[in-house]
């Protein structure tokens, strides 16, 4: 049955998807900054910054949309996540702040175009690692377990540390890092202006694809013991599985054959399908195995207003975004 709560959950999923495709790739770019090697090291870094700097703020807004829709539409879930995931969320925030400051400094600081050290790169790797772990521990049901222990006899570590500092969440975290790095590398092959740089990122993309498969395999093995619900659910959604595999193979093949635009499209599709696979696997739960979308939902009047607000907002924003794109189309490389 599809009602208001499901619609809002859908909006949440779409916003999360947008953030992963845009903001996620920005994080991936930071990872490549950390791994910049070879004679073209500085040029690689320049390309990364040039392709992120003008758009990271707009990309970042998607995360704010996710958070605001979550706490308006599903306050109970927001409250549980904010409590149990306090530590990883805080570290994630530090990562976001460091990255944001790095851009401000680079563009307007007194030190001009000098790099802002490894802080930027490390923050880029840690943030998706924790984002993945948070998703991983939600999927295992550890978040829901811990939420029930609050105020009881449980120790600090049982409630606030162990849910996310475990093998499966960590595997999902590394999976997220590899996936974002893969996404970023395929985007950068399109953004790069010369063949040498393009090839650098092509090779990096292929390497990242290998890492993605490795992490996925580890996560799947761990999933059978840690997150039975996810394992069963994902296998159940065979169609999505097949489509994900198809997109993944397509992305790698296109990268191999230097069909960069196709690779970018396929990589984006692959990442989106993985996200939706996870979401469908845990439907109708928001925080499995206790909190469903309906249980967590705000009162209907709030949901109605939220849908209305989102619709009106979209009507204003869509043409504005198109205007922005049209104005700067000529500037976009490639």
């Amino acid at each position, binding site marked *: 049955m599809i009602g208001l709560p499901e619609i809002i959950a859908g909006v949440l999923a779409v916003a999360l998807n947008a953030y992963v495709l845009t903001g996620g790739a920005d994080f991936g770019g930071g990872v490549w900054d950390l791994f910049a090697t070879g004679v073209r090291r500085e040029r690689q870094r320049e390309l990364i910054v040039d392709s992120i700097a003008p758009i990271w703020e707009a990309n970042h*807004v998607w995360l*704010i949309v996710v958070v*605001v829709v979550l706490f308006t539409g599903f*306050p109970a879930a927001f409250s549980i996540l904010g*409590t149990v995931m306090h530590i990883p969320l805080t570290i994630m925030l530090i990562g976001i702040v460091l990255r944001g400051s790095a851009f*401000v400094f680079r563009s307007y600081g007194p030190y001009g175009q000098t790099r802002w050290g490894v802080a930027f790169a490390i923050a880029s790797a840690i943030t998706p690692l924790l984002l993945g772990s948070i998703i991983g521990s939600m999927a295992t049901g550890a978040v829901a377990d811990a939420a029930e222990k609050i105020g009881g006899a449980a120790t600090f570590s049982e409630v606030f540390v162990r849910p996310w500092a475990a093998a499966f969440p960590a595997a999902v975290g590394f999976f997220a890092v590899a996936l974002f790095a893969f996404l970023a590398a395929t985007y950068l092959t399109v953004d790069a202006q010369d063949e040498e740089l393009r090839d650098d990122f092509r090779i990096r993309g292929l390497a990242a694809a290998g890492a993605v498969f490795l992490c996925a395999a580890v996560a799947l093995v761990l999933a059978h013991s840690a997150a039975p619900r996810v394992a069963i659910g994902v296998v159940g959604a065979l169609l999505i599985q097949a489509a994900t595999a198809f997109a993944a193979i397509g992305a790698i093949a296109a990268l191999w054959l230097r069909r960069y635009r196709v690779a970018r499209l396929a990589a984006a599709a692959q990442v989106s399908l993985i996200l939706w696979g996870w979401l469908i696997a845990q439907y109708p739960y928001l925080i499995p195995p206790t909190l469903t979308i309906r249980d967590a939902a705000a009162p209907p009047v709030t949901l109605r207003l939220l849908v209305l*607000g989102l619709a009106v907002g979209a009507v204003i*924003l869509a043409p*504005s975004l198109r205007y922005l794109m049209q*104005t700067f189309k000529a500037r976009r490389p490639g």
Partner: protein
Amino acid sequence: MALSLGFHIIFAEIGIAMPLLMVLAEWRWRRTGDAIYLQLARRWAKGTAILFAVGAVSGTVLSFELGLLWPSFMRLAGPVIGIPFALEGFAFFTEAIFLGVYLYGWKRVSPRAHVSAGLIVAVSGAASALFVVIVNAWMNTPAGVTVDAGRFTTVDPLAAMRNPSTFQQVVHMLLAAYASTGLAVAGIHAAVLLKQRGADPSGPRNTALFHRHAMMVALTVGIPAALLQPISGDTSARAVARWQPVKLAAMESLLDTQRGAPLHLVGIEIPRALSLLAFRDPDAEVQGLAAFPRDVWPPIAPVHVAFQLMVILGTLMALVCAWAAVTTLRRREIADHRRLLAALALLTPAGFIATEAGWVVTEVGRQPWIIGGIMRTGEAVTPMPGLAVPMIVFTLIYLGLAAVVAISIASLVRETT
């Protein structure tokens, strides 16, 4: 959280008023063709961009902090205050898009479209402030909900947005933003002009002209706002008297309920003035703290001191602005008036200090409640032990952000001096 907001409020004030300065400067340039105004517009556009970038980061941190520090508050209030926050999100998105057009579109869009983009940035910045302050107003004087045993049985977010404090608080905050930023920018340029006085007259005359123009545009925004602010403050105080009598009593540290209550200002007692100001009747009864149970008293000393500080600084700003306005009306150059320049330079930080003080009045004055009369702050805080650690972490984050802004702005200011 308090600390984060304390920093954010300053970032936000500059972020609201800066685009207005930038559009005004561009408009002057299009009208007069004077290239200095163009230079100013570009400079202020850069400032806006810095503040926007940092504001984006600090806003993200804040939206997460709501859940990290106040999970129970969000569980209860999320359905009510989420709507204004969502609207704020859209205003912010719009601002981001048109700031992009403005910053990178100097040569790509028509002059009219460019000025319009700047105006949209200024308006959506003000709209963001509107929605956020609505949330705060609701926390002060909640409306649109019925409460039963600590849960909301009915919720009407639109009625919540029209709570009794909304209008006064929004007007007061917006005027504060324009007055503080306008006077701060004017103050910086006044200080430079003051320093350059008596210097070699054949020296860099161009920069003097630049600073004159900059100061005048900033004053165009700052003077009206600073002059209107005392009026807005007065209506705010009356609303507080009616809806939050405990807060008013704390602001004036009035212990006993009395008729014809006096007003204390820096140790001077003005008889019956408080009754007159709060209720428009010199003999009106003002409730003292003793009329309320002790467990709903806010911390009195900080609220009282902060209120005094805000009123004094606001009054000084209004007086200096009146002086500047009269000088201009008499067709004399403010830049040639040494004492006026010195006064303006001295008042550079005044608006921001007054804002912080006002924020202490409204927030600390609401304690022990996080939602006035409904939820206590202690009930709202996260059950996670060791809260000192996140406090220190977030404080460091914001000190870092403040340093980023300060260094970037300073290097921007230095470019011209």
